[in-house]
């Protein structure tokens, strides 16, 4: 309680309100979000599409749309999807790829994000199936290592989705506005 943080006058202290809700982790919320902010610089993503002769903006957006479908059919958390997209962007920032492996990168990214965050991650076979067996097990597993090496085995990547939820809760944004904001994200 004596962490020395102050809330501007006239603003209600959201963490104070949720003090007794153990699942809001109010005691650590402020620090955790500060920590996320500090970590943002570790994961720079630039306009890598300019360096990818074989991949275009629209291909990335088709890939992400497909990943949203995967998220729905596997019933994954939103954080898993956002983490997977981050993983792709980080990988493509550092590696030039050809379009035929784009979907492999995408599904492997979901595969990794699931292992990190989901309670019961789907199996390799599930991922091969959703790619219509375009890739084999060996390719997926070696892509997993490639991606992990590229991003330095660090998956503590700050996610826009977490910030949005935090802002919405603190600002008591109504469900409609939040849904709109989610859509924009």
């Amino acid at each position, binding site marked *: 309680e004596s962490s020395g943080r102050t809330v501007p006058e006239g603003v209600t202290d959201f963490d104070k309100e949720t003090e007794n809700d153990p699942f809001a*982790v109010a005691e650590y919320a402020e620090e955790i979000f500060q920590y996320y902010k500090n970590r943002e610089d570790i994961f720079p993503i630039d306009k890598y599409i300019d360096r990818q002769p074989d991949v275009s903006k629209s291909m990335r957006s088709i890939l992400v749309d497909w990943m949203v479908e995967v998220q729905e059919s596997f019933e994954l958390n939103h954080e898993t999807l956002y983490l997977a997209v981050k993983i792709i962007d980080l990988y493509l920032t550092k590696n030039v790829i050809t379009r035929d492996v784009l979907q492999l990168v995408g599904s492997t990214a979901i595969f*990794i994000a699931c292992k990190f965050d989901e309670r019961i991650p789907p199996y390799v076979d599930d991922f091969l199936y959703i790619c219509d067996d375009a890739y084999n097990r060996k390719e997926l597993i070696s892509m997993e290592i490639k991606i992990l090496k590229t991003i330095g085995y660090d998956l*503590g990547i700050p996610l826009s989705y977490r910030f949005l939820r935090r802002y919405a809760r603190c600002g008591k944004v109504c469900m409609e506005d939040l849904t709109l904001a989610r859509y924009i994200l």
Partner: protein
Amino acid sequence: MQKYEKLEKIGEGTYGTVFKAKNRETQEIVALKRVRLDDDDEGVPSSALREICLLKELKHKNIVRLHDVLHSDKKLTLVFEHCDQDLKKYFDSLNGEIDPDIVKSFITQRSNRLSFSHCKHVIGRQQKYPSLALNESGELKLADFGLARAFGIPVRCYSAEVVTLWYRPPDVLFGAKLYNTSIDMWSAGCIFAVLKSVTQILFMGESEDEGQYTFTVFLNHEQSSLGEGEGEGQYKSTSLHLESTVHLSYSKYFSKIRHRRLNRLLICNPALRMSAEDAMTHSYFADLLPSLHNG
């Protein structure tokens, strides 16, 4: 594995074997943890993936340092800093006597590390004294992160099968899947008790059922006012994990480890359990040097 010369097998981790080894160039002694990757497997096991990622993220003097991750065809090798002994060996060498100042120092280091991880969105879920290691300068290090995970806000449901049984808090023991940083604090209390008594384990049980039973019997002894539904077979239906605010007093059973602080860590209701943050400012540490507080 040319870079390292294997010296001896140290043990088995959550996954894979651990070896003591020497860096051929620098002569540095390290611990190598090997994760096998089979072609017909699921790639990197998720426990290994989480351990690697979280250790890459968390650098603290009370958390064992992950120097490097080596990948070769069929395995991943994690290169850790080497610690001379684990807490269990250390206890065995003490013949049942422990200096209270050492206990205090250990507990400070533990609280320090827990508060550090909790501020960085990580819960350990694996607090037991055999996974704590010591180096020659008396620094206590958590050496096993195989069950740790990052948590989000608000917390979601995670696995209930976490934390070695004897250190599992009652809410989780009775099946709660929704828990937060308080899960580590219960275990911290159990370890504190272990430290004070030099190895007396509080809640032993060979299986989840037995663990629940031991705990229920214990609780009924202490708080006969808890009332109806006592006894074997009934404990599963009690909703004690969310409503009960029973303070456990160990005085009758464990006179050696009677301590106010335990009562604040070993509280059934996770919401009322003391946090690592509060633990650091507890009067128990009042006479410690300020340098230790910030360490």
